């Protein structure tokens, strides 16, 4: 047995995918034209699969803040938050996030992935229990695995299933943490957070909500699903990322539990990683300011999301459960999904293709994500490109 024999199945899968689409492995952004358009394979292409919900990566103020941070503080910190990698801007961003989210404590991490890894590998341990939604992101699963906590899944957004499991597991007397997401990354649907809070309260559990896709997107002030559902005080740990609506890189966890601060000493992914670069931190800080003062960005995002959802629904595509800045278009067969994806690309539209087991329910998805920066004309072009591939759905 050679070291690499274990990759044989992966090799075969890659060959199968290559048979469906060579382009799948050649998606390189050659030139960024704007937040919603890029040159791919030599052709100007509308980007409709980027998680760039609010257009922050291209905002002049964010770029200027990042440039200024580089000029004043350099390109990297060369150290962990625990050692020489905590600059005043890291602390200021933590304070800004706490203020924005109405929480007492915030830790900023180097990525959203490491935020989940840090919190879930440390806050809960082998004697505790995590009950998570089956559609939770890989970083939530990986954080649990790193800490050795006992993990139980409930069916996606199925409150009867969660209720049954928490009732059964609460009999053992262990601490229980429920982990869910605000807006799910593949289907674009919300967690039923009020019902989850009801169960959490009834059984004395803790609640972690990953608002990676909902920060800046949901809630009157853009604080996410917990704000929209009116349950912010009931969420013990809010996790999120700077890499989507904030257009930077990094992650955070905010909480009213003062013990969150102890993670700075106990969390291996926090201690043993270089801190975020000054440019990333400065860009995220500026983006939070913009989210706070420009609610119209959220309004434009939702107008675009509703426009595309309605147009695709008129064409009888099978979509996610409700309009959302993430719109999954379902295909029963993988070859047809690839043909449709290739067709969209040839018509100048890039979306994500998601295949089982990454897609939640065994179907293939063409996943669209909208931006406040898309013009109504671009949204219409995306809809027209879908019309051309309708026969494949």
């Amino acid at each position: 047995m050679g070291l690499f024999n274990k990759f044989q199945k992966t090799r075969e899968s890659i060959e199968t995918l290559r048979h469906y689409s060579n382009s799948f492995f050649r998606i390189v952004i050659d030139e960024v034209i704007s937040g919603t358009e890029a040159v791919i394979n030599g052709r100007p292409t509308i980007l409709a699969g980027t998680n760039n919900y609010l257009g922050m990566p291209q905002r002049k103020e964010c770029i200027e803040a990042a440039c200024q941070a580089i000029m004043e503080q350099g390109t990297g910190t060369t150290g962990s938050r625990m050692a020489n990698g905590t600059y005043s801007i890291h602390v200021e961003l933590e304070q800004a996030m706490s203020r924005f989210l109405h929480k007492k404590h915030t830790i900023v991490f180097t990525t959203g992935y490491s935020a989940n890894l840090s919190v879930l590998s440390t806050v809960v341990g082998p004697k505790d229990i995590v009950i998570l939604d089956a559609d939770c992101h890989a970083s939530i699963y990986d954080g649990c695995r790193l800490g050795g906590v006992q993990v139980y899944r409930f069916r996606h957004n199925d409150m009867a299933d969660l209720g049954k499991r928490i009732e059964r597991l609460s009999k053992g007397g262990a601490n229980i943490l429920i982990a869910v997401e605000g807006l799910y990354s593949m289907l674009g649907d919300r967690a039923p957070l009020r019902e989850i809070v009801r169960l959490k309260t009834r059984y004395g559990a803790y609640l972690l909500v990953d608002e990676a896709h909902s920060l800046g997107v949901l809630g009157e002030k853009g604080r996410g699903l917990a704000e929209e559902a009116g349950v912010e005080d009931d969420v013990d740990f809010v996790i999120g990322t700077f890499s989507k609506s904030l257009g930077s890189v990094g992650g955070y966890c905010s909480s009213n539990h003062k013990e969150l601060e102890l993670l700075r000493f106990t969390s291996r992914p926090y201690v043993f990683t270089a801190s975020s670069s000054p440019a990333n931190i400065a860009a995220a800080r500026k983006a939070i300011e913009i989210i706070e003062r420009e609610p119209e960005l959220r309004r434009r995002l939702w107008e675009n999301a509703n426009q595309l959802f309605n147009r695709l629904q008129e064409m009888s595509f099978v979509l996610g459960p409700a309009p959302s800045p993430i719109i999954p278009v379902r295909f029963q067969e993988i070859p047809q999904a690839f043909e449709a994806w290739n067709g969209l690309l040839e018509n100048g539209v890039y979306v994500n293709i998601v295949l089982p087991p990454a897609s939640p329910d065994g179907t293939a998805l063409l996943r669209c994500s909208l931006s406040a920066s898309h013009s109504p004309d671009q949204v219409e072009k995306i809809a027209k490109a879908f019309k051309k591939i309708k026969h494949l759905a």
Partner: protein
Amino acid sequence: MKADERILSKIVEILHQHVSKKTAIRAETNLEADLSVDSLKSMEILAAVEDAFDISIPINVLSDIETVEDLALEIEGLLKEQQ
């Protein structure tokens, strides 16, 4: 170590509801290789098994379960823990 026959037969009954009816299922049957149980199907099967035995199976143990007998032994262990 041999699994309890009653637990085995209940698992086989549940598996027959989720995989091809034509497949013969025995203690040594491999869930992935012989029954093509993928991650999605495994969740449905585990939920049915949990309800049938009124237990909770942590996903941490799934990587150790390859055969029907492995699953039966895991359930046996969880039932003993509950007593």
